């Protein structure tokens, strides 16, 4: 192991009266992949933004190559060789691959962009990463994983010595994630210090040399990856041991199905059949592109299907609008909470009661007290960490608590069937277990639940049985007693990223 490229000592940062980082220490050795874990609100993003020069620390020092540095802006951090690859891809989709890789550093000749030199530099950057992309193609035509490679290639332009990846795999398929890990290892071998921020434990153990956990603004664990277990890491994240129990409820086969699909098909999937009974949690597992999300959208009327029949409580239904599905007693969570779930300018009470506004109104006028009461009904049941009045804006809550509010929507609406897409995406470890407990509790009360997910933990933790989809088709049904990570990944035709 070589010398530390970056040494952070006693970094403090407050926003108003609240201190977010209380004297944080962290070393980033060159040529090492360091994983940084932490629940939402632990201070990860604040720390990253300090490293990237976006925030000024209130105290403490950052040393680069042994000399104390003071970043007054993003430019200073870049000049010191620090690059940040943010969670959201920030590229210029209408420009070419080469233009994007060199974005902000286009080579010029006589004041005009030198396209030949640009292509050559872009090609070199991709070659160093051991990959290849069509340099003239518009970025908009590429897959998400390819666009991320462009971001990484861009971060290697100039003298980059430290690259920070902030939840880089959130939107990637398994194969893309594997490829990303290879790129990261390759960068480390070339002596770059890597800081990899995630909340997926499997990634930490597959990728990192070292794992650090940030909790309440302090580093609560810092070890070589080989020296710690998953349970130790989780405990360091949440500050207590988390029961990773299976909450699964076995199927109640006696009742007639409440939701039944026969031969459903659309552009993204075909010939999907299943029957969902009350008290059952049906897991539908598939990676990005498998058609799982499109299927769940079709079940809730958000997207049309062209073949087959959908039966709700025995009668065939064709939803033309999500409102039709809601009226039929189907509630849902969308995979992309920010884009399709939250009403960001509205309060918790308004968000939770949104599908029920009509019912809670008299002659078309909403009674605010009734909205607050509706929120109060689910506030404690769902263990939402917020003021009980429900008057906060939903954007002020953490991902896990937002998800609970959105789940509450359908409990208040009285939906007996729940179709949940990626119910634990962007949710931290503790809240994840709470969501599992809530789902198991709902099933025990007779709700029929579909969990459509690309996260095998959702299935192993809570499903009564699992269907596996690959490229738009159902390839396997796994009964309750045989559900395991191995069985799921095998059926989906590939290993967990390793």
């Amino acid at each position, binding site marked *: 192991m070589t010398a530390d490229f970056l040494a952070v000592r006693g970094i403090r940062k407050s*926003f*108003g009266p*609240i201190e977010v980082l209380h004297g944080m220490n962290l070393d980033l050795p060159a040529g090492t992949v360091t994983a940084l874990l932490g629940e939402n*609100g632990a201070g990860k993003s604040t720390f990253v933004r300090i490293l990237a020069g976006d925030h000024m620390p209130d105290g403490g020092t950052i040393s680069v190559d042994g000399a104390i540095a003071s970043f007054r802006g993003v430019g200073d951090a870049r000049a010191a060789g620090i690059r940040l690859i943010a969670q959201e891809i920030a590229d210029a989709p209408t420009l070419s691959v080469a233009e994007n890789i060199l974005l902000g550093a286009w080579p010029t000749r006589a004041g005009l962009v030198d396209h030949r030199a640009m292509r050559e530099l872009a090609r070199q950057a991709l070659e160093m990463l051991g990959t290849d992309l069509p340099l003239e193609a518009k970025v908009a035509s590429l897959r998400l994983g390819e666009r991320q490679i462009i971001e990484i290639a861009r971060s290697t332009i100039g003298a980059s010595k430290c690259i920070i990846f902030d939840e880089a795999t959130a939107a990637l398929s398994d194969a893309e994630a594997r490829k990303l890990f290879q790129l990261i290892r390759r960068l480390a071998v070339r002596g770059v210090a890597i800081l990899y921020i995630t909340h997926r434990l499997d990634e930490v153990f597959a990728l990192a040399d070292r794992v650090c956990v940030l909790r*309440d603004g302090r580093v609560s664990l810092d070890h070589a990856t080989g020296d710690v277990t998953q349970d130790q890491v989780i405990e360091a994240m949440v*500050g*207590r041991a988390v029961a990773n129990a299976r909450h699964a409820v076995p199927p109640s086969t006696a009742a007639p199905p409440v939701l039944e699909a026969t031969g459903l098909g659309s552009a993204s999937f075909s010939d999907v059949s299943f029957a969902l009974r009350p008290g059952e949690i049906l897991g539908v597992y598939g990676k990005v592109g498998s058609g799982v999300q499109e299927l769940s959208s079709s079940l*809730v009327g*958000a997207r049309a299907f062209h073949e087959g029949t959908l039966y709700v409580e025995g009668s065939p239904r064709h939803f033309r*609008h*999500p*409102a039709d599905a*809601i*009226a039929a007693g189907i509630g*849902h969570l*969308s995979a992309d909470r920010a*884009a*399709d*779930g*939250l*009403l*960001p*300018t*509205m309060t918790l009470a*308004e968000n939770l009661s*949104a*599908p029920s*506004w*009509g019912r809670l*109104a008299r002659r*078309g*006028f*909403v009674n*605010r007290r009734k909205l607050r009461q509706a929120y109060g009904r689910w506030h404690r*049941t769902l*263990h939402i*960490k*917020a*003021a009980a009045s429900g008057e*906060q*804006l939903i954007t*002020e809550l953490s991902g896990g608590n937002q998800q609970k509010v959105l789940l509450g*929507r359908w409990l208040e609406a009285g939906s007996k069937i729940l179709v949940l897409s990626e119910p634990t995406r962007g949710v931290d470890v503790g809240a994840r277990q*709470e969501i599992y*407990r*809530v789902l198991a*509790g709902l099933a025990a009360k007779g709700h029929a639940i579909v969990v459509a997910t690309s996260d095998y933990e959702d299935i192993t933790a809570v499903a009564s049985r699992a269907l596996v989809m690959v490229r738009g088709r159902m390839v396997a049904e796994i009964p309750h007693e045989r559900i395991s990570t191995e069985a799921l990944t095998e059926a989906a035709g590939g290993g967990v990223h390793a």
Partner: protein
Amino acid sequence: MPDNLQSEAGPMADLERNRNRAAIRKAPESAALLAFLIAEIVFFSLSSPYFLTWGNWVNVFTALSITGVLAAGGTMLLIAGQFDLSVGSGVAFVALVLALSIDSLGVLPASMLAMLVGVCIGLVNGFLVTKIGVNALITTLGTLAIFRGLTQSIGGGRNIQIANFDWAIWRPFLNIPLSALVFLLVAIMVGIVLRRSVFGRSIYAIGANENAARLVGIRTKGVVFAGFLLSGAFIGLGGLISASQLGSTSGTTGLGLELAVVTAVILGGTSLKGGTGTMFGTVIGLLIVGVLNNGLTLMNVNSSWQQAATGLLLILAVSFDQLRQRLVGRR
């Protein structure tokens, strides 16, 4: 059900912080605007003794009545993330229809026809935006040009007198003209509808996140269509007020009204991105512009300068709001 009551400092501190931030965020939205309006009022009352009289305030509201009625529709639409730029030429077209039909049809049928024409303008806009899927800015820019062109070609560029149609200047109550009372009534009604009704809350939901609104079962297109229809009805009403206040109509009637409406709505704190804003804020925005114009007139400032001052005010207010958001949003 889960019941692990771990009450460490973390979540509580979060709550406290959230509450503080929410308070900071909510307060200045209307408070800063109100403060600005009060500063204007203080300034003008010091520079003109006539400014603070009842008669002058009645004038301020009367002058705002057409813009105000249209701004009620504009507020609803902008909260839903939509625009209606056709209001100015719509008012002129409605007034023309009234002027041409009032002699043959009589006052009441001609007024009803004019209202219907206003609603039809909204219908065309709503159809193009929600059924065909044309962007609202483009749609209403198009209908703006169409109805201005129709007004000028049918009306022939002359000033058409409208006789026996002076209801708007009748002062039934506290010496306030009926047109100002209509404006106040519309503002109060739209304010209540936006704040309290399912329709109003749906408008906010659509502006906040149209996908999410659709997925919670709101018929988003229907609500936006209804918003355009209402805006059309307000065009009809605005046209009737205009015809009655002026006693005539011409090709330049209502010119630039759409910009006055957008100015007032944005000054009033409605975000261009949709999802936020109130009718109360819009009334404050209207008053800021109205008081400025009235005060400058009392100070004998030329009306061209008044226009420049309004533009400057809009940019200042929005710049101020951006700075405020940067201060509050910083994390």
